[in-house]
């Protein structure tokens, strides 16, 4: 019995390891290419990190740097040259500006609304709530074209506003927070009113602190979605590099697959992808909770 169980366990691991290898393939390829020299990439040699021989890089010399500057190890060169060629910090900063603005506005709009829907009694509440439920069905990417037309008419294409505005309303956030506020006991709110707190103060000083766990999950959900979003920025940012978000930057790095050097290109892609992956590995439980948030009913 014991032995049989061990064999069973062994088989399961064998299957899962093959699966894990397939899943990890592109990650391996990405990291490996960002470390190796062009020759090693083209001859598919050198394993994960390559030989790391110090050498002079011709493309770098051609770009106008001195030979001395251009002599270094492949991994140093790839990452250094990636930052020389493109304003990567700028792209990352744009990513932070856009995702944070979206999240903050979403909360400013959704939290009071959710509170009103959960705890205040007013004429038309049911109607507003059914409107929220209806809007939950609309995929924002699906209505991208009319939104684009509206933004173009307003002259907002190629601005931060274009990147942020369409996402300012998160009906999912309203729905989620409302469900959460329903579980907050009325006594807590009544007590606050007795203390003379106004409704605004109640939302931000009483309800907000109770909602921190739900809000954190929603934050991860929102930030991950918008950090990785490529479709919408691709629609509304046409060429202004100063407004590029990380995925648009990635697209620019890719350039011509046959013309460019692959090492620096992959180095830039790794740089842009890594922040989220590291955050994920550190706070795994919270991330999985946040991203599968849509799975809660």
């Amino acid at each position, binding site marked *: 019995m014991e032995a049989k169980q061990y064999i069973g366990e062994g088989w399961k691991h064998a299957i899962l390891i093959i699966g894990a290898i397939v899943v990890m393939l592109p990650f391996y390829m990405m990291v490996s290419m960002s470390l190796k020299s062009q020759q090693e990439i083209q001859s598919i040699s050198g394993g994960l990190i390559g030989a790391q021989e110090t050498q002079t890089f011709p493309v770098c010399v051609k770009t106008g740097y001195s030979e001395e500057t251009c002599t270094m190890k492949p991994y140093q060169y790839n990452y250094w040259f990636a930052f020389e060629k493109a304003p990567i910090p700028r792209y990352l900063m744009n990513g932070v500006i856009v995702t944070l603005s979206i999240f903050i506005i979403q909360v400013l709009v959704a939290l009071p609304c959710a509170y009103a829907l959960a705890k205040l009694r007013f004429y038309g509440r049911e109607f507003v709530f059914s409107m929220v439920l209806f809007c939950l069905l609309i995929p924002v990417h699906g209505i991208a074209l009319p939104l684009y037309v509206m933004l173009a008419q307003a002259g907002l294409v190629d601005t931060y506003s274009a990147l942020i505005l*369409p996402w*300012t*309303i998160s009906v999912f956030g309203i729905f989620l927070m409302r469900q959460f506020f329903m579980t907050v006991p009325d006594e807590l709110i009544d007590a606050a009113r007795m203390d003379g707190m106004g409704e605004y103060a109640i*939302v931000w000083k009483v309800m907000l602190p109770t909602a921190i766990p739900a809000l954190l999950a929603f934050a991860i959900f929102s930030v991950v979605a918008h950090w990785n979003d490529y479709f919408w920025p691709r629609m509304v940012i046409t060429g202004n590099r100063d407004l590029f978000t990380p995925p648009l930057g990635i697209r620019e790095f890719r350039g011509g697959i046959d013309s460019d050097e692959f090492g620096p290109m*992959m180095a830039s892609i790794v740089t842009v992808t890594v922040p*989220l992956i590291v955050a994920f590995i550190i706070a795994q439980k919270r991330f999985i909770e946040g991203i599968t948030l849509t799975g809660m009913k």
Partner: protein
Amino acid sequence: MHNSKAHIWFIAPAIILMIIILIFPLFLAGGISFTDYNLGNKTFEWVGLENYDKMFNRKTYVKMIWATATYVIVVVPISVVLGLCAAMLLNSLRFGADIYKTIFFLPVMATLLAMAIAWEFTLHPTLGIVNSFLANGCGGVREFILGFHLLPWVDSQESWYAVACANNMDFPYWLKQKNTAIWTVCFIGIWQAFGFNMVLYLAGLTSIPRELYQAAEMDGAKSTWEQFKLVTWPMLGPTTLFVVTITTIRTFQVFDTIEILTKGGPSKTTYVMMYAIFEKAIQQNLTSIGAAITVVFIGFILVLTFFQRYVIEKRVHY
């Protein structure tokens, strides 16, 4: 209750934004789809159903529907089944489940666009490790397994693998060949989606009470498969319904991989709807036809969601 008017200030911003950003565009898309309006034009004319007529009769758009349907029909079932299998395997492991969970969830987290480029290189005919792995395996175990030589109807000299080996390592250019591009894109879609489904199924599995398995065993369901049929699968009904719906909606919206890897080609075999909207309306400035595609696209998604909410929901809940 309180006679303050606070609630108006609380709900007004949300309502205004919902109307402007979510509801009005629906009508705008509908309206534009009946005109010949292109962005930048000062005037437009009503053209009735002309745009829709084009959509269902021109070859390009028929191919678009096919590509989208193929993608959804392949990716949804496979990624759901893989997610379920992975979840059940992990659930029955004695150790190591957390590591696999992290690895399988990585593709969900990582920027899809970056990963698409990584896949492009992984599958590249001369630079990629996939084709070099295949080429090095000619005449060996890899050829035997991946050429399906074990199957009785496969001639070991004529299998795709053997033919490629014989023709100077002529393995497919996965993303550029007409007969492989759509399947390769589907593969990347599955790779990206199944970890998400796995996590949802893992949550579903933990909510099944242990006693049910004991009861099933007493009723004579001894084998794992019988227990799965009798307990696990029915109890996962609501999870499955949810997983299928959300995967379908996400799959319909595929764009990143297509735009960066195939641009809808070769010969429109991967021309999915979101890419068509982007190409027609933004790149070629044919706003009205883009609007018509948008309307059909939203129609699909609304029908699906209603179907989930009101038809099936009643049947799967225990």
